[in-house]
């Protein structure tokens, strides 16, 4: 059972890692951002699977922290590009 879960964790990681090909291939920046978001969620899933399979303490906490921080980083990226455009138009007062 544990082996199945670990294999699932590995497959998930490799799958969303393949999505990083978008980031690596230099397509539009927003695609890279979406790939990172998918990587974050896939990473959380893999961590939860590994936590359940191996019983190592604290891995679920890492997943929880990652959940909060990955969203924060993605949101901040989209927000930063909007703020840039706003300040170019003199909106930021």
């Amino acid at each position, binding site marked *: 059972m544990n*082996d199945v879960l*670990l*294999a699932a964790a*590995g497959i998930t*990681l*490799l799958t969303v*890692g393949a999505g*990083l090909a978008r*980031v*690596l291939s*230099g397509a539009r*920046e927003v695609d*890279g*951002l979406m*790939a*990172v978001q998918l*990587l*974050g969620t896939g*990473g959380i899933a*893999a*961590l939860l699977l*590994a936590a359940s399979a191996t019983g*190592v*303490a*604290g*891995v679920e*906490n*890492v997943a*929880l*922290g*990652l959940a*909060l*921080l*990955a*969203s*924060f*980083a993605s*949101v*901040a*990226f989209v*927000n*930063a*590009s*909007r*703020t*840039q*455009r*706003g*300040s*170019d138009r003199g*909106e*930021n*007062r």
Partner: protein
Amino acid sequence: MTLFEALDFALAAIVLGLAARTISARRVFGAVVAYVAYGLLLAIIWVRLYAPDVALTEAAIGSGVTGVLLISASTRLGPLAAPDAPPGAALKAGAAALSALVAGILATAVLYLPDPAPSLAPEADAHLAETGLGNAVTAVLIAYRSFDTMLEKVVLVLAVAGVWSVAPDRFWGGAPAPLGPAAPDTALVFLARILAPIGAVIGVQMFWVGADEPGGAFQGGAILAAMWMIVMMARLTEPPRISSGWLRLALIAGPGVFLLAGLAGPVMAGSFFAFPPGFAKPVILFIEAFMVLSIAVSLPLLVAGPPNREAGR
């Protein structure tokens, strides 16, 4: 090759690819996105190496806060002119050679470690009971080498002071620019209203639990910082004026309380930075609480940057 080994190779290969992409990306935004992905994968690798505390810190600081810092800096620099001449081939070759040399030395050092590698981990574990803590990482940070950790917090304060000093004289005492556009996305405002309180509770819990499980002051503080930054990005609150008293007090509270506790060491327990036996854990948690406050305040200030308006506006 076992499944684990194959996975390790794949992870290492992807990480190296992302690092190459970070260096070779033509635009800053793409490079920072690749860097954040690199940080996330590194966090997973740390978990693979059975280091959940480091994984949390890597995800929080290395990829989360640093990524946002880099992207904010790049949007601010956007309108500025690029340097006249890009670095020449000789300079690039020199930098590449130096980096390769350092990486090679590190790799050689790690590969030539005796087997089993020398480690203080058993010693650290053996004396854990005296500190009253259950998490060896927290014990190392706050008990065994507490002076180093205090100095790290001082470095954080110095960094904030350095960022502030970049502002022109006439702006000193004012507030940094808002973190978000004038009309923020309603989705972001919704997120700030719902996620920030929950995230704050989780951040405090992460710090509290750090005494016995993976977690701790730095991780909890980073999560609190992220939540405050989300609220500022949604324009529900603005970055405070840098002259504000409570802000400066919160900044120095961490290293300040730490230093006071250390100075009280000779009185309480017989030597500088010693904790009274049997009473160590409450003192440690007390110090850590103020450290969480300082970290939660300094990180958003680093991202917000120097003041860009006069005090009183």
